């Protein structure tokens, strides 16, 4: 057997068994050489056993799936994949491109570039002009169109993330404008658009391949959220309790607040609760959640009720008169001293959960801003009727 074949056999055995293999001693000089070569191969074992960290593997998988989703979405809206689209669609739509590439296009290059420049100028102009457009307004669809065209003209992952972030900024501007006008309906529509565009920006950023670009965009997103959270907080006093609940939900999604209400429980004081008995009320309302602070008060259908008996970070107890909870539908909330509101329709009475009934109309809120239907946070999906 040739030395290279012997080496290959010994190497195979070593890789399979993971142990040192015996070498025959018929040819001492050749054996020594083989041993040296096997020893060199053994030095590669650390590389052979190296594994990526679990965190890296999970993070990369998540980013790859997001990337696949992005590519799928791009295909669905008629965009070409980035890897297939070296030429922006504005220069030569795919249907106009000959199979051999763009070289055979019959459009004079200068004319094409002038067209591109004009189109981009128009797009940017439209984008600037419509930046303050609120969702539902006449210019809003123009703004979306301009941003869509801009995203097609600059088909790179970073540009997509930047575009989404720019849309989120425009949504925030529209929100502030609506707040200044006192139009809470438009403000909350802008808030919904803001959350949607913010989530899209976060998804686009997480799919960025280049680590430094991803970190830079993540820093921009964090900075944007920080500023937006401050703006949203400043607007809390101008909104009714349901609007404040939506704003609080957005703040919670960004990690800007911990306030959350998960469940409320009504207990008759004819039972044994000494707190409620001491207060003299009919019912004891216990609200569970997180982020409760001193000064927080319990709301029922938007109205402060009863007397707060005890507050802990995860629970508030209040004494409630039975008349305050006489309606067919209950929305129980907690309002902090700085105006944040978290609500739930998951209300139990004496340990019994009644069937779900969403609030049909805006209950009295006392703030003068009507017209916004109750919109419990996504986590608050179960409701309850009082009674039973």
């Amino acid at each position: 057997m040739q030395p290279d074949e012997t080496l290959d056999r010994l190497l195979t055995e070593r890789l399979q068994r993971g142990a040192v293999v015996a070498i025959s001693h018929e040819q001492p000089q050749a054996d020594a050489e083989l041993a040296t070569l096997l020893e060199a191969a053994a030095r590669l074992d650390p590389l052979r056993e190296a594994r990526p960290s679990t965190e890296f593997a999970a993070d990369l998988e998540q980013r790859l799936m997001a990337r696949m989703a992005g590519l799928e979405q791009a295909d669905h809206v008629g965009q070409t994949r980035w890897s297939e689209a070296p030429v922006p669609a504005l220069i030569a739509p795919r249907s106009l491109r000959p199979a051999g590439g763009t070289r055979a296009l019959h459009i004079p290059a200068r004319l094409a570039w002038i067209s591109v420049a004009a189109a981009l100028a128009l797009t940017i102009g439209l984008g600037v002009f419509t930046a303050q457009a609120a969702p539902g307004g006449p210019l809003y669809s123009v703004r979306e169109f301009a941003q869509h065209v801009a995203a097609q003209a600059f088909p790179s992952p970073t540009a997509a993330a930047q575009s989404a972030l720019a849309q989120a900024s425009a949504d925030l501007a529209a929100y502030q404008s609506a707040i200044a006008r006192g139009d809470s309906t438009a403000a909350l529509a802008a808030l919904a658009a803001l959350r949607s565009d913010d989530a899209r920006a976060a998804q686009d950023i997480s799919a960025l391949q280049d680590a430094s670009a991803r970190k830079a965009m993540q820093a921009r997103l964090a900075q944007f959220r920080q500023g937006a959270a401050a703006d949203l907080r400043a607007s809390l006093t101008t909104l009714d309790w349901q609007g404040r609940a939506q704003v609080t939900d957005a703040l919670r999604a960004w990690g800007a607040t911990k306030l959350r209400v998960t469940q409320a429980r009504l207990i008759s004081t004819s039972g044994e609760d000494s707190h409620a008995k001491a207060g003299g009320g009919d019912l004891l309302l216990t609200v569970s959640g997180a982020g409760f602070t001193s000064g927080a008060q319990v709301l029922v259908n938007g109205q402060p009720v009863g007397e707060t008996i005890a507050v802990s970070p995860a629970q508030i107890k209040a004494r409630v008169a039975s008349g305050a909870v006489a309606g067919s539908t209950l929305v129980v909330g907690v309002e902090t001293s700085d105006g944040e509101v978290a609500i739930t329709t998951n209300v139990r009475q004496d340990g019994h959960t009644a069937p779900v009934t969403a609030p049909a109309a805006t209950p009295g809120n006392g703030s003068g801003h009507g017209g916004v239907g109750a919109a419990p946070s996504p986590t608050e999906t179960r409701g309850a009727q009082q009674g039973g």
Partner: protein
Amino acid sequence: MHHTRGDQRTDPGGAARPTRAGAVGVGMTWPPALPFEQALQRAQAADRQAMGLLYKRFLPVVYRYALARAGDIHAAEDITADTFFVIVERISETRAHDELTFVAWALGIARNQVAMHFRRLKTRPTLRPMTADEADSANWALPGERDPLDVITARESLAEVVTALNCLTEEQRAVILYRAVLDYSAEEVGKLLGKQAGAVRALQFRALGALARALHTAEGDAEALQDHLRRPRRQRKGE
């Protein structure tokens, strides 16, 4: 190519890795529940679950290749990520029809990403010494190797090996990496590189010789360092 579809153990890195006993010449295996060809076809049709299977199977392969070329965990992670993003974007274009041709395609992308990495560095690969945390997070440290001296030893050893690998020719390096790091048989390496198995064995013999010489050259400095570290601190201060 032979496929072992039975005996497997779970790799903590997330991939199913074959046991090699009795499987001569086996470089690739696949869970029998879903044939590789089907997984590839589904992934080409934008099936995320199938893409996830391919990712889990080939992540260790690409990562080890990147680590062996870059010699740095962070660079290896970046190269691995870039490689998989290209794979995701271009999987519909690949003409791979089985595991081996797919690996050849994927490692070709990884090789390009490594070249781009070195171009970005604008120099020949220079190794940044790993921190102790990096040496811990890399899994080449054996259990019980928590002694700082062992960590340093592992770090120096990896640096030496990668430096020695970078002294080889492209062909020699490819044969050694595919054969001794990625566990392909000589026949499979031949298919990956477009060579006969006999030529691969001969090349492997020369490549390991060159690697041994390169390691031997580097060992002088490493031994001096180890001797220095083994001596008591008092003695070192007196030097």
